[in-house]
């Protein structure tokens, strides 16, 4: 692009470089490099601290059966809670976003936007106590019902917990926590769906819902996926709320409603770290490395999904 690329050409024109441009380009590049450095630093720390646990003999790792056996239930617990939260929150968030952008009267929509955004401002400790004190007891009947009627599914095999401090409750608390993130991003992309295409749909005789299906949802799809991934990231890494609500620490199980649940990586680290010593610390950090890799993989997967049909995205 610039003359620096082809210095050997005799008649190469030197583009005028204004100081403002240079400063802006430099600072933008510096910001980009900075975030990569931070990421690399975190990764390097995790790897270097995790190495002792990775190389230690299996019987020295807490639990005595090696790192894999220690981390596996935590990974399962983390994924179960986060995926449950995502499954509950995404449709709800898309519905809220569509309601505020295309159905609600403008005054109601603005007010609702504020209230939803406020959900994001509540500290996770508060969510944790709310989950423990209010939601968990309130959900006990649901647990019993699920065990009775859906018991044939491994997720609801029971026996139903009597305290409600289960993976199901955690998933629902997490769903409330990630709801504002997904709905805020969805709302932004939905409101930017081009009037040109919305009118094209209406002029073909689309009802409002058909117009949304033809012109708004396809346009906003990548934004919704992006928002869902941000929410998933928060759900995967959520520590306090899970640590408070979940009575975890049991082995790997898909059962969402019994009183023996696997813990999650982040809450396990928070609960065990104060008393951990030596190899115990390395093991916890190794589990943190696993969480880091999971989050990275999830984000790359999301990006791949979004880019798969880039031709049809409307960006060209």
């Amino acid at each position, binding site marked *: 692009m610039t003359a620096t690329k082809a210095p050997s050409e005799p008649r190469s024109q030197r583009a005028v470089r204004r100081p403002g441009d240079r400063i802006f380009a430099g600072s933008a590049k510096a910001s980009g490099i900075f975030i990569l450095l931070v990421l690399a630093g975190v990764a390097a720390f995790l790897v270097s601290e995790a190495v002792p646990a990775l190389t230690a003999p299996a019987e020295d790792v807490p639990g005595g059966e090696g790192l894999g056996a220690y981390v596996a239930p935590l990974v399962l617990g983390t994924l179960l809670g986060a995926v449950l939260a995502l499954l509950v929150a995404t449709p709800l968030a898309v519905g809220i976003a569509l309601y505020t952008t295309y159905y609600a009267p403008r005054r109601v929509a603005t007010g609702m936007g504020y209230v939803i955004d406020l959900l994001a401002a509540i500290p996770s400790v508060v969510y944790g106590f709310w989950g423990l004190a209010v939601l968990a007891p309130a959900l006990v009947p649901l647990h019993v019902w699920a065990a009775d009627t859906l018991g044939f599914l491994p997720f609801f095999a029971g026996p139903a917990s009597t305290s409600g401090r289960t993976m199901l409750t955690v998933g629902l608390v997490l769903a409330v926590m990630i709801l504002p993130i997904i709905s805020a991003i969805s709302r932004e992309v939905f409101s930017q769906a081009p009037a040109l295409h919305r009118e094209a*749909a*209406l*002029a*073909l005789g689309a009802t409002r819902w058909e117009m949304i299906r033809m*012109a708004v949802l*396809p*346009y906003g799809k990548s934004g919704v996926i992006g928002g869902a991934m941000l929410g998933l990231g928060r759900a995967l890494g959520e520590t306090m709320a899970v640590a408070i609500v979940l009575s975890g620490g049991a082995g790997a199980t898909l059962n969402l409603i019994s009183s023996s649940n696997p813990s999650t990586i982040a809450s396990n680290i928070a609960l065990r770290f104060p008393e951990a010593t030596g190899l115990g610390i390395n093991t916890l950090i190794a589990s943190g490395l696993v969480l880091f890799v999971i989050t990275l993989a999830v984000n790359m997967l999301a990006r791949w999904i979004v880019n798969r049909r880039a031709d049809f995205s409307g960006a060209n």
Partner: protein
Amino acid sequence: MAKRIEVSDLNIYYGDFLAVEGVNVAIEPRSITALIGPSGCGKSTFLRSLNRMHEVIPGARVEGKVVMDGQDLYGADVDPVDVRRHVGMVFQRPNPFPTMSIYENVLAGNRLNSRRMKKSEADDVVERSLRGANLWNEVKDRLDRPGSGLSGGQQQRLCIARAIAVEPDVLLMDEPCSALDPISTLAIEDLMTELKDRFTIVIVTHNMQQAARVSESTGFFNLNGVGQPGRLIEFNPTEKIFSNPDQKATEDYISGRFG
């Protein structure tokens, strides 16, 4: 198919603002009617009132009657969605759905009618519509590609194909050529001349040569000043409008004199 439209005492509002006042006109079937006039005179607003697209804008409303073959489009029991399924529209800027293929774009309107269509039937509609829009030969080998990959003129013809795929009674065109080069414009004008055998066509244009070339009747809209409502000043056969108009304002506009 093609239907006659009778408009009587039509007032069009944006909120409290009266944008177009007192339009009375009869639009003949199987012909092209052109609407000309300066910017902001309400010709596009009037056009959008013919398929009830005007009221899509918050606060926008209409008083008066638009009767199509005996039925008032603004009657109490008339669903605007039904009106739009019978009155197709082509917009100023080509707007194929970017997330759909060319094939799906053509069928977008048919899919809305939620009729189950056999694959062969759908193929027929696509080919017939694209042929009708003089686009078939250019796109038949890439029907599964996105419509947004076409040139501007091709995109506009794709939009016309999409509008005629549902066999509407009337086709409204809001400055369909203003974003196109002269060659694409000519292609669309030829297309309009072919389509008028089957549809009632109403076109808004800023290009007076275009109005003179393609239309049978022409309406001239004007307004007295900013903030004043637009009015239909004169409606006559195109030949008369461009050679010997009844109104002085029309003559001034056509000959490039204002004031």
